[in-house]
Structure formats: C-alpha cells, structure tokens
C-alpha cells in the first residue's frame, strides 16, 4: 500500500480480468441458452467461485513467490530461506498477500451471491458443507499442481514459463465440468489435472446433484497430489546450488 499508483493499476487490472470473464460468458450465452445443461446463472456462480479461488492463488502464491522462483533459483538467491529452521516448500511458496488480488475476491463473492439469488432453488445445509469441503480439497489440489510445476525450476534453468503453466492450467476450472466428460478430456481433468474440483464440482454439489463419488474422489486426490508434491519438492530442491562464495 506504500505505492498507491501501482496499487490502483493492479486493482484496475484485476477488475478488468473479472469483467473480461463475465463478458466472455455473456457472449457465449448470447449465442446459446445452456452449456452442457448449465444455465447462465449457474455459470455465473461458477465464475464467481473460480475468481475467488484464482485470486487467492494469485495473491498468496503467484505474484510474490512462484512467479519469481525460476529467477531466484537461477541467481542462487534462495539461500536465506534454506538456512531458516522452517519448511522450505511453504516458506518459498507462500507469501504476504498481493493486496489487489485479495480485494478482487470481492466481485467474485458478489457474482456468487447474485448467481445464487437468480437460480432461486433451495439448497440444503449438507450440500453447502459438501461444497465447502470439496472447495478446500480443490484448493489443496491447485496448490499442489502450482508448486509441483514451479519446483521443476530446480531442474530447468530460468524456465520462467513453469509457474505460468500451472496458473494457465487452473483456467480450465472456469468451464462447467460436463464439457470435459468424454474420453481423454475426462481422464485429464478428472484425474491428471483435476482443476474441476476448484469451482465446478462445488457448484454442481450446490445446485445440480449430490454425487458422493465426487466427494470421495476430491479428498483422495487432495491427499495424493499433496503427497506427490512434497516428495517432488524434497527431491528437486537437492539440485539447488548457491551462487554465493
């Protein structure tokens, strides 16, 4: 907040991004009435939740940490973190928030509230709980994916695209999951890059169907992905070499 001009530019950009997402789906629904059985207001709730989760990742993980990781590794600039008696993975990937992103969650919450009010459908307390549980699992999976991709920076020198790659993959979470319901796409987005658990499945649990299989799968994948990422990180960080004398 010290640099007010920059802060307002960052905020403007984040709001423009949200505006672009809404506009995009407005254009889609200007041409069709439903997408794989999802109405505009259901998609609006999905976009809102996706914005909240995405901005959380941008604000806590990406801007001040993962985005800069390949360059910091190349410059041998992570020594100060390694000598601290703290977990290196959490210390190198989690940061103080990028304020503009945290504020940008507000329109996401608004879209969720607006979408919900227009759907006009009673939702049970249990469905809300399941939806929150799956969202937490989705965030865990998303964190594991982002950190997993970024940790490859220890192998590929100055590969600045790696953190971006994880963020780009998360964008698949903005589509309703039935669009990935066939063949290879289903395998890819349900099991390999399960970004459908970030927003689409939680939205579906609220308004479309209570599918116990999704809940079990979400919890299992969260545990599995986190375990793999911790293992991957601890192996790859051994390749780091300091640049100082």
């Amino acid at each position, binding site marked *: 907040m010290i*640099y007010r*001009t*920059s802060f307002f*530019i*960052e905020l*403007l*950009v984040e709001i*423009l*991004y949200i505006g*672009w997402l809404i*506009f*995009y789906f407005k*254009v*889609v629904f*200007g*041409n*069709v009435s439903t*997408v*794989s059985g999802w109405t505009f207001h259901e998609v609006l709730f999905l976009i809102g939740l996706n914005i909240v989760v995405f901005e959380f990742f941008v604000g806590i993980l990406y*801007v001040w940490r993962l*985005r800069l990781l390949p360059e910091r590794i190349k410059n041998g600039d992570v020594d100060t973190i390694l000598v601290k008696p703290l977990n290196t993975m959490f210390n190198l990937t989690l940061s103080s928030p990028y304020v*503009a992103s945290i504020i940008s969650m507000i329109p996401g919450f608004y879209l969720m509230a607006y979408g919900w009010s227009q759907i006009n459908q009673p939702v049970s307390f249990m469905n809300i709980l399941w939806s929150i549980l799956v969202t937490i699992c989705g965030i865990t999976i998303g964190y594991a994916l982002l950190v997993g991709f970024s940790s490859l920076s220890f192998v*590929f*020198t*100055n*590969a*600045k*695209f*790696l953190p*971006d*790659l994880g963020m*780009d*993959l998360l*964008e*698949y979470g*903005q*589509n309703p999951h*039935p*669009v*990935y319901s066939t063949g290879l*796409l289903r395998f890819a987005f349900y099991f390999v890059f399960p970004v459908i658990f970030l927003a689409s499945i939680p939205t579906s649990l609220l308004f479309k169907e209570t599918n116990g299989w999704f809940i079990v799968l979400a919890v299992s994948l969260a545990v599995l992905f986190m375990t793999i990422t911790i293992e991957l990180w601890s192996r790859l960080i051994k390749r780091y070499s300091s640049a100082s004398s």
Partner: protein
Amino acid sequence: MQKYLGIFRNYFSSSLEYRSNLIGLIIKEMIGMGVILVLWVTIYQSEETVGGYSLIKTVHYYVLVPFIGIITQVQLSNELGKEIKDGLLSSHLTKPYKLWIGSFMRVLAEKIFTLSMVLPLYILLIIGLDRFFDASLLSMRGVLLGLMICLAGFILHFFLDLAITWLAFWTDDVWSFKHFKDIIFGVLGGVSFPFEFLTPGLQALFHLLPFKFMYYIPLSYMLGDRGADHLVMDLLGITVWIGIMISIAFALWQMGVRKYGAYGG
C-alpha cells in the same frame, strides 16, 4: 547498423540458450487455446452455426489465434519495465545506441527464433485439421494477405508495448502491464471470440480500435472473410495507428527519462 546486428545476434543466441522457454510458450498457447476450444466444441453439439461460424471455421479460428499471436505479440514491457524499476536502465543509457532500436532487434531476434521452431509444427497441425474435417478453409492468397497484416500488426504492437514499458518510470510494479494487455487483446483484439459472435453495436465499437489488427483482421484474411479489396484501407488504418503509438511512446520516453534516477554505490 553493425551494432544493432550485434544485438540481434546476441539475443538470437540467448533464445537458443533458453530453449525450454520456447517449449513453455508453445504449451502455454496450446492450453489457452484448449480452454476456449473445448467449450465451443461442446456448444456446437447443439448448434449448427454460431454468429455465422460453423464448427470447422471456429476450430480453425481458435487454432490460428496462437500462431498469429507468435507473430504479433510483443512482451517487452515485462522485461524492460522491470529493468527501469530496478534502476538497471543506466547500463543502456551509457551505451552508444538508441534503446528503442536495440529493443526492436531484441524482440525481432526472439520472434524469428520462435517462428522458425513453431512454423513447421503449425503447418503439420493445419494439414492434420484439413484431413480430420476433410475440408480446407485456408487459401495461399488469404494466408499471404493475413501475414502481411500480421507484420504491420507486429510493428504496431511493438510501439504500443514500448509506450507501456515507459509507464514503468512512474509505477513500481510492471507485472500488471502484461496482464492488462492479455485482457485487452482477449476482448478487443479477437482472441477470445471472433467479432461476429458479438452484437452489431459492439462490433462497430471494436472496429474503431487498433487491437483488431493484432488478431481479428489477419484471421479474417486467412479464413477468407476479407478480400484484397480491404487491404489498402487496412494498411492505411494500421499506419495511422503506428504513427499515433510512435508519438505516444516517444513523448513518454522524453518525460520518463528526465524523471529517471538510479542510485547505487
């Protein structure tokens, strides 16, 4: 001229050194294309045409977007803006060359390297698409006209990006600039959807802006929606916008460099 060719050679070699970034760029573009394509393919399961576009035309449109982007995109503001922010501009100022020409050579070198790697892949992809749909939408004439606009679009984008870069003299974070451009091109340039998907009012508005020259107009030529009769007017329009961007970029440079200060031991 010799010194600028030297810069070109240096950056070309540097591109070779970090080849993994090119692979990353290709994967990134494919992911971006896939997010949109998957949604539209689903929509076409229940619709014959959307905005006058058939499935095959829509697929060609979105497949060609990243290729056009490789020619017209310029990502200078992120790197050079950071150098201004970190006070590293001084090393450029003390050298006997014009920074904007050096930057142009830098962008050109990276672009030529990228294109030489990506072009064969794209030719294979288009042949594959034609075989899959058993139809071809692209003509040699359309592709050449589209490429001509792409080159002009690249020059326009370079000066636009240069103007954005100089904004770093007044701000302390440049990351948002790149994000800002992605959004602008997503909507106003035709990356997210062809203008035909929009309402007539929005189409008219978007046609007034320069961003269409970076994606939508070249794609229209390639897909045969725009003929050679539009070429003179389009090139004239693009030239006017290049003139405007050059004026803005140079005015910002003059003001910014006076304000610039680097402090060190």
